[in-house]
């Protein structure tokens, strides 16, 4: 299967390039610093130390993941364009979709590695809190829910990665692609809130009567707030396997759709 082989090599090359940017080493250092900071920050509080530790740890995963998507991911793609490596790749028997999907998988594995390293640090600091201050950990706290929340964070990052691939595929400049991706992130984080405000609130001001537009937008933009399970993990609230499965499905289908559009637009992109 030449297509699979191409995807594999492109993903591997992207992953190795990510490591060559030394970003992962920076993340390892960040994980160590954040783990120590986490223990210190949690002790600034008198109650719910476990909650603070979980929120801090998972927020660190999110923030680092976003930085990787917006800067490392975009930079790798932009470098391909600016250094004309993309022409070198496309001159071989590699289709446009091989390039987009291969890059997506390679960057996705970088995100996974980063999430595992930072998640490991977050788990260590939470373990310290549960060991030292068991009375200040919510009674329903569950490591399984914690792991699922971490997985949800990664799924959300994968969706953002798909968004940034789409932006890259049609934007004339990498900086424009970055701006579009960041704007989409902010919209995606607040899409659920906006939808709820308009649909459930009769006093939504200028948004009254725009319910259909907002609902339509909530289908176009990624609903990233659904993947934010920090509070759920922090308080050990209910997070069913079914919901997690649906999140995986949502991530897969939305990302696949975006990658499809990205491939179509990429074919029309001026590469020279």
């Amino acid at each position, binding site marked *: 299967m030449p297509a699979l082989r191409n995807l594999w090599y492109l993903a591997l090359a992207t992953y190795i390039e990510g490591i060559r940017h030394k970003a992962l080493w920076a993340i390892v250092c960040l994980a160590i610093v954040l783990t120590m900071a986490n223990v210190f*920050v949690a002790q*600034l*509080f*008198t*109650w*719910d130390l476990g*909650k*603070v530790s979980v*929120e*801090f740890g998972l*927020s660190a995963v*999110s*923030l680092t993941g976003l930085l990787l998507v917006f800067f490392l991911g975009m930079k790798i793609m932009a470098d391909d364009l600016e250094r004309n490596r993309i022409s070198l790749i496309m001159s071989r028997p590699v289709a446009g979709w091989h390039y987009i999907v291969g890059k997506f998988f390679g960057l996705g594995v970088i995100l996974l590695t980063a999430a595992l390293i930072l998640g490991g640090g977050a788990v260590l600091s939470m373990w310290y809190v549960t060991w030292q201050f068991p009375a200040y950990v*919510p*009674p*329903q706290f569950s490591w399984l829910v914690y792991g699922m929340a971490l997985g949800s964070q990664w799924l*959300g990052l994968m969706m953002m990665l798909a968004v940034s691939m789409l932006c890259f595929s049609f934007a004339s400049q990498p900086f424009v692609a970055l701006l579009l991706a960041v704007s989409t992130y*902010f919209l995606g*984080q*607040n899409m659920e*809130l906006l939808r709820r*405000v308009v649909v459930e609130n009769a006093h939504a001001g200028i948004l009254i009567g725009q319910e259909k537009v907002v609902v339509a937008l909530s289908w176009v933009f990624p609903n*990233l*707030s659904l993947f*934010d399970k*920090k*509070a759920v993990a*922090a*308080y050990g609230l209910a997070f069913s396997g079914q919901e997690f499965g649906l999140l995986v499905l949502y991530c897969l289908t939305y990302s696949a759709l975006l990658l499809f559009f990205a491939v179509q637009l990429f074919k029309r992109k001026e590469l020279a």
Partner: protein
Amino acid sequence: MSTGLVRNIALCVFLGSLYVASYHTLLSYRADHVVRSQHSSSWNLPPLVLQVLAGEFKGLVADLMVLEAGARLGTEVVRNPQGGFRVVPKQYDWPTIHQLFVGSQTLDPAFAQTYTLAQGWLPWEPAWMVAEAQDILKIAARNRPWDWRPLHDMGFNEYYFRNRPGEAGKLYLEAAKTPNAPSFLTILGSRLAQKGGETESAIVIMQSMLATKDKEEPGYADMVQRLQALEGVRVIEKAVGKYEQAVGRNPGSLVELIASGLLESLPSNPYKLEYCMDQAGIIYFDRPDCRKPPPGETGR
């Protein structure tokens, strides 16, 4: 000296002067406005805007806001003009502090630090923000179904600050329904509810709680005893009600009530004490000398 060097020195002096002047002005401005900036709050935003700005980091921002609120409370060390230092209470800006609590709770309605700190400061002198504290505790209680303390604190505020024992008792009894709640809440709640004229509610809540408890559980026997006492109070209260309808006033004492024939005899008290009715017509099962003012009561 060459012309170029002179020009460079002049330019350097000119730029240096500009820098010194501008930095000095900035420092002076900050010194003049330090009080104003201490008491203003960049967090004073509508809840919806806060949620939008915090994005997926709502929990972290909530932590930060509650730390900010904490930093505005307590005491601070100030320099004496004559030398040395002294500890003084901070100048509290209660609306801002309250806003910080509200903002923190908007972002993370289940955070214990927010409601505990709010309860520790808002209802007390000099803030006297009992209603605001109750609102914060109510949201916390709704979002922390595993935690009995928000309802307990609400009950305390109703009793201590608002002098509403009936409401306090109902809240204590609600708190007692929480898993792992201490058993004293039931006893205290029923006591306060009955004192506040909520005997019927206290009985119903206690019956529902007993129905879900195991007889072997610690505190079960105490609850049964308290329920029996409350049922005795209810029997007497009903008779007092009939007396009021018939005579148009409270009976002067329980002896007078029995003499009227509306109550055959006083029900049995599981605490082996005499029931007592005070001047206001409140029935007690645990204060046989209720007509005397309790020692040390100041009437707050």
